[in-house]
């Protein structure tokens, strides 16, 4: 009798059930776990890229491949354009945190404003990436395509460094990894737009909290986080 009543007691310890041990809402935990798995996917791609670079004797020099600012300078400005892209993405991450912060205060108008800023930042980044891809494509790089051996001399540190295999691996991995990242940015923008519409409709106002803004915020910051690594390993190292 006594034992049964003990079993019936509601347990209150953090790991005994009855309440969330991490004090995180279910959807948010699931977003975190999704991002963890996504981080593994991106890690695998970048690690394969690293293994390829380690195995090759030479590799296209980023300062020579990426040295144009579309519409301003064709040559001689390494890293400037990607610097602008990086700034745009960090900036849109900041506007996203500001939207989350406004959500905590349940300030609907401010959430709408910052969400719009974030979406604009996302579109700007995607536009820049489209230009970057077009530029590299015009140079002759694409999945399965590289410029001729003669043209490739412009993209390696020294003319005798030219390696067709390394150039092809670079082209394939650049388009695959930045493409996969760009796809994440695109889906992030779409999700942000959905959340913006829900905010305008007052869905979160009625719900009493803006947790959905936090969840898409996590996704958006993750996209920024991946870019930090892509930027380092493709443009700097």
């Amino acid at each position: 009798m006594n034992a049964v009543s003990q079993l019936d007691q509601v347990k209150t310890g953090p790991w005994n059930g009855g309440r969330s041990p991490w004090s995180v809402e279910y959807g948010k935990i699931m977003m975190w776990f999704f991002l963890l798995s996504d981080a593994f996917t991106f890690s695998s791609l970048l690690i394969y890229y690293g293994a390829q670079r380690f195995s090759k004797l030479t590799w296209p020099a980023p300062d020579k491949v990426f040295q144009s600012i579309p519409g301003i300078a064709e040559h001689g400005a390494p890293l400037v354009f990607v610097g602008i892209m990086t700034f745009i993405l960090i900036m849109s991450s900041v506007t996203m945190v500001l939207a989350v912060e406004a959500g905590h205060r349940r300030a609907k108008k401010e959430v709408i404003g910052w969400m719009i800023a974030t979406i604009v930042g996302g579109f700007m980044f995607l536009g820049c990436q489209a230009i970057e891809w077009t530029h590299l494509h015009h140079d002759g790089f694409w999945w399965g395509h590289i410029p001729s051996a003669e043209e490739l001399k412009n993209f390696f540190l020294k003319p005798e460094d030219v390696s067709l295999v390394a150039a092809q691996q670079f082209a394939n991995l650049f388009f695959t990894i930045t493409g996969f990242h760009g796809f994440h940015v695109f889906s992030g923008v779409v999700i942000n737009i959905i959340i913006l519409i829900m905010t305008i409709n007052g869905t979160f106002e009625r719900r009493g909290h803006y947790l959905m803004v936090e969840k898409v915020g996590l996704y958006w910051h993750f996209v920024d986080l991946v870019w930090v690594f892509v930027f380092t390993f493709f443009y700097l190292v």
Partner: protein
Amino acid sequence: MSEHTHTTDEHGHDDHAGLSKGKIWKVFGILLLITVIEFIIALVLIPKGYMTQHIGNYVYIVLTLLKAFYIVAYFMHLKYEKLGLQLALTVSFIFIIYFIVLMLIEGGFLNIHMMNH
């Protein structure tokens, strides 16, 4: 209904008001500063020979991890979550560290192998 959900302790952020606007801009400043340092290394220090590309690569990776820390800890709010969640999300990367070591050793071996042929 909405009152009920708001009073449960499911909302971790209710314990602390989240990041203040000042803190957000401070973290933004740090991220921007780190990026500017990376640019100075890439555009000035390495071309002028103050730093070798080899040393530069290590510095880039350290700075990148620092940026990642600031994004995850502050923007993604992980610093303010419970220790259990922090551990679950960070310790898992032990597999990635193992994979990095494994693949880079493999790549390095192939490099030596190619040089001999």
